[in-house]
């Protein structure tokens, strides 16, 4: 989900990710365009980085949260999708 720049308001960095996303959803000004992914984010490199691999990260809560957090800590997303449920 990306919000257009015409909704940009104050100095970048003034808002928390939560504030930024909620403001964008409400159509309110934001400090910068928020970037969210409503689905889970996981790559093999992120799995290596935090030692939380599939399929264990699908079942172990601690690994699941550790891997999910990387969407914020490493990729700079404004969201974290904490559950991996890959159905194949």
């Amino acid at each position, binding site marked *: 989900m990306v919000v257009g720049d015409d909704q940009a308001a104050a100095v970048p960095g003034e808002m928390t990710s939560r504030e930024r996303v909620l403001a964008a959803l409400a159509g309110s000004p934001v400090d910068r365009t928020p970037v969210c992914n409503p689905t889970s984010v996981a790559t*093999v*490199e*992120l*799995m*290596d*980085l*935090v*030692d939380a*691999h599939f399929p264990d990260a699908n079942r172990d809560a601690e690994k699941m949260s550790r891997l999910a957090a990387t969407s914020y*800590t*490493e990729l*700079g997303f404004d969201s974290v999708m904490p559950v991996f449920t*890959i*159905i*194949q």
Partner: protein
Amino acid sequence: MGLTRDLGRRIELKSMDPHCHDISLGLYRQQTVEGSSYLVHTYSAHEDAPSRVSEIVRGLVEVAGMVSLAEQPGLVTFPCGGRHEKALRRSFLEVCKLPGSEIGGVLPLVRPDKKAECELTIESLGAGSYRVTAPAAAELGPRRCQAVSRGFAKLCEMDSDESQPCVVRFGCGMEHDALMGALFFRAQNVRSAMQEDELAASRGTLAAPGSQDGNP
């Protein structure tokens, strides 16, 4: 906060290395004063990871003919300073398929060809040009030489000349004997190489249950 590093542009990824605890191995391009250089890196902290990275780097040096940068350990480059990235990516993936004990040595420029029922030879013509040849008695030799040449042109992004269908040339004009040897067997069957690439690219792609194989 972040642990990821700016390693340059990743040009290839071995997502799960079966020879080292399924770690991921990335091949990154960096710009140095020598031109384009390449780094093999893994984010895995497994104790065997550093040695596996070293094995892959050794493979790129010994099999693909790259050289290590003395001033920047871990970086390798082609002697010509050029990119040859399509060939490099293929060589990287081929090296990753091998356990450390099987990595090493320049592969020969002579190989048996089942379809031609003879041996094919890659002759260096100088200035980065190579000709694929077969014994004169081999009935299917000329046709297979052309096919393998086309294979090299595709795999290594080499230049070809319609007037000399069995000759291909590196754009840099430099010799790359090791690279030719490393990709010779792939050039003999480019179709399978392309199919392998497609399979790798589609791996991990999520599909709706109704569109998956075997579902009614």
